[in-house]
Structure formats: C-alpha cells, structure tokens
C-alpha cells in the first residue's frame, strides 16, 4: 500500500498538490518495484488527480518502469566516456551470462537491465548503479564479482 501519510507529508512541500506527483510516483515505485496500472491508480487517488494525468507523466520519464522489474535493477551507462572504456562489451557480457537484454529482466527474475545516459561517473568509467549502489571502475571481472553479491 502507498503510505498515505508520507504522501500528505510530501504534498505539504508544494503550493499545489500536483507538485507531489513525481515524488509520489517514486514512492509507489519503491513500494511495488514498478508502476503497475494499479499503482498509478493509487497515486491518482492519493493526489486526487485524473488517472490520465498520472499516466501521462509516468510515461515521460525514463526511470519510471511500466513493466515488472527483477529483484535487482542494473543501470549501466554506455555514454561516451563509458563507451570508450568498454561499456558495450559489458552489456554483451550481461546478455551472455544472465540472458539480459536492455530494458528486460532475466528469466529467474533476479536482474533487470537499463541502459543509462551518463550517470556522472565519467572519471571512473565505465560505471553502473545496482539498485541505489554506485559501482565505478568496472571491467569484465569486476562487474561479475559485484553482481554475484546481489542474490
């Protein structure tokens, strides 16, 4: 369930209720792992906004997921600096090892993969986020060791 008290607390930070929409979507996604139609409905009820408004906003932003996610979300950057240091090879490796396609989830539901546009870690490229943990200085060996830590 979406924490209504938390939503009310967020709403107080904005002069209009709608300001709380992005934070409320983040909250719902944290709760359910993705923004299912039901989750969006709940946000729309909590903020008293039309469902279409909520969906319109949720579909604009890359970080809101409209398909169920795996237990752990891998967000790997392939922008210029990361590309130069081999990020594309790492993406291929994730496919070989876990059957992961960009935007997809592994069959066992363990990992989901998102390709990112620059996560501001260019000095330690290539880099990724796993859930909310930041992992820079990746190579083929390191990425595997790190991911083995996420069961």
């Amino acid at each position, binding site marked *: 369930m979406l924490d209504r008290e938390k939503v009310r607390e967020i709403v107080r930070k904005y002069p209009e209720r709608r300001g709380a929409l992005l*934070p409320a979507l983040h909250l719902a996604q944290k709760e359910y792992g993705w923004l299912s139609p039901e989750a969006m409905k709940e946000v729309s009820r909590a903020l008293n906004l039309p469902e279409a408004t909520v969906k319109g906003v949720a579909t604009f932003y890359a970080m809101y997921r409209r398909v169920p996610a795996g237990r752990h979300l891998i967000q790997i950057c392939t922008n210029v600096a990361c590309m130069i240091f081999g990020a594309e090879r790492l993406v291929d490796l994730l496919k070989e090892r876990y059957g992961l396609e960009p935007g997809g989830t592994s069959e066992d539901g363990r990992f989901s993969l998102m390709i990112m*546009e620059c996560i501001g870690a260019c000095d330690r490229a290539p880099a990724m986020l796993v859930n909310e943990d930041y992992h820079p200085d990746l190579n083929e060996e390191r990425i595997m060791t790190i991911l083995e830590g996420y069961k």
Partner: protein
Amino acid sequence: MDKFLLRGIEEEGSAAIASYREKGGYAALEKALSMKPEEIIEEVKRSGLRGRGGAGFPTGMKWDFASRDPKFPKYLICNADEGEPGTFKDRPILEKNPHLLIEGMIISGHALKAEYGYIYLRGEYPGAKVVLEQAIEEAYKEGLLGDDILGKGIKFHLSVHQGAGAYICGEETALIDSIEGRRGQPRIKPPFPVNVGAWGMPTIVNNVETLSNLPLIVSIGGEKYAGIGNPECPGPKIYSVSCCVKKPGVYELPMGTTLREIIYTHAGGIRDDRPLKAVIPGGISTPVLTPDQIDCKMDFVNLPKVGSMLGSGAVMVFDDTVCLVRVCWRALRFFEHESCGKCVPCREGTGWLRNILERIENGFGRKGDIELLQDVAHSMAGKTFCPLGDGAANVVLSFIRQFHDEFEHHIEKKECMA
C-alpha cells in the same frame, strides 16, 4: 589558488555540518543576514558572477529582474539535474560539501526575498539525495532553515525534488514543469521564469555551482571576487575532465585556465603519452576542438572565439585510438533519446542524424551522406524550441568541420582510421 568550492572534500565526513563549520562555514550567512537584500544583489553584480549551468548568464542581472517583479511568493530553484554527458562537477558539492550549497541558497533566498527553495536533483544521483536530505535536516535543527532563521525574522524553507531520468529537465522551463508535476517540456520564452515561473510566480533558477559561490562573494566582497581568474567572467570554476587522460577527475581552478594546462598539468596528460586527437571542452553539446586550439582559455568569453562554448566545463579528451565518428554517433543517440518530442525539428532531426551516423559507422555510409548530415543539421539549428536541438545539430556540424577526413574515410573505405 586555494580551493573554495571543493575545499576539504577528500576528508572523511566532510558533508557533516560540524566539519563545514570547522572550515568557517555559515559565517557568510551571518554576515548576509545583517545585510539588506538589495545590498547582496549589488555585491553579486559587482562580483561579475556568471551562471555555471551552461549559458553563462550574469547572475546579478537575473536576480535584479526577479527582485523587480512585484509578485510574491518567489521561488528559488537550484538546478542539480547535471545531465550533460561528461559533466560531474556538481556531484562533489552535492555529495561532499552540501552545506556550501545550502548556505548559498539561504543567502540567495534572503537576497531575492524567496521563502521557498527546491533542489531539483537528478534521479541518477540517489547517493546525493541521502546526503542532501540529511544536511537539510541538520540545518533545520540548527535554526539555519525555517520560519525565523537565527532569530533574524527571515524565513526560508528548502527541500529536494528528485527527477526521474530526463536530460531535458535541466533546461530551466522544463525543470519548472517537472517540479509542478508535469512532463518536462520547455516553455516558450518570454515570459522568463524570473517573472512567470513555478506556479506562475517569479522563479530564480540557478546551477549548483553558481549558488555555491555565494558564501565566497559575501565573505570577501564582490570586488575582491572579481579579481579571481578572467575579469570578464571571474571566479573559481570546477572543470570535470574525463576520457583519455591519466588523471580524470574534478579540478577547481581560476576561470580562464587554458585547456592545455587543464589537460597536461592537472589531468596528467594523455594516457600512455599518446597523441591528442580532439577535445570537447564543455560537455557533449559543445563543438569539438582540434589539438592546435588547446591554448584557448576555458571561459565564457574565449571559447566562443574558437567556435565552441564553455557549457558545463566538462572536458572530454580523445586520443588517437578513439573513433570520432563513433563518438559523434553516440552523442546523437543520446540527443535522440533525450529529445522531449515537443518540436518537430528536434524530434525528427535527432533521429535522422543518428540514423545516418549509424550507417556510416557500421560501414554502410553512402556518397553524399556528409552533405545530408549537414543539410539535416542546418534545418534544425536555430529552429528548435530550446537549445537541445541546437546542441545536437552543432555537434554534428563541428565534428564534420573539424574531422572531415575521418568521416570521408569511413564512407569510402568502410573502415575506421583510428
């Protein structure tokens, strides 16, 4: 030059309020609270501070416009969207020195008579969110934020608004839409946000690094600040240096340090001492430079003289092993993905540019593709709703202008020179 923006960030626990106070933090706030708002704006004008978000707009002038608007409430928004590829200069402030930004924002709030502030933080920085929220809580506890700051009868509230992965939300009017809970798409200007911004009210949007200069300006005074770096656009500047250098990282230097000094003295030169091939000086949206142009001073005045821009000050260095057609293609894939879709030249143009670059890169380039790229780019530049489309077009035009041979070679020989 002593570091100011990044002072002490290598120390453990640098984000805590106690260690910020040890470095003299919040002394400038006490001074600022005893000044009249107009006096602070006057100091900012005298300082010559120009916005560090990319456009280099004079901060004092922006503040003057906002403070002349009779409407209240006014909102102060810190732009911490930092989405420009290659850019990681705000991140150390957000994660390691958050109280510098908070102090800067309280001072700015007082100067602008804004009682509410938001930090628009990109969703890709979850670590910074935790640090900032903790720092804001500390500041509330010590009476630095709230309805009656340090008993001076001044009110300022601050919170973090987390973005959700959209580069376009770094553009200030799209950012305002996003704070209001909308799809982040740029608005037509005028009216400018200083008059009609968030919720229709006067809104001042400034970059993290810009606002973090406020404590320095207040403590040493605008005049002395104007003596740091290039007098035409003074102050300390954080350059983020990445790709093929020995020591990639952030370097706080006087504004106007040459590209050569940044690359060879501070970032340690090119990895394996290879030859330098190209430099993007200010983030992926800024035109690329050749090795003979690196004596240029890195500031808002001198880079335009060599056909580029300071942008966010994100220096991306490429050696002779890097394929520039590929870099250009990757840049366009970024712009295509991030185009918000509101205006046709950008939405369609970025896709076509990426498409043509992709076939060249994959060895399927056709005769006439270079001219076609230029044609598409020319029908975008200056014709889009916001500068995202210009950036995309100008990147392609500059890569072709500066490295024509490399594109030709790709098309004719179906292979890469690098």
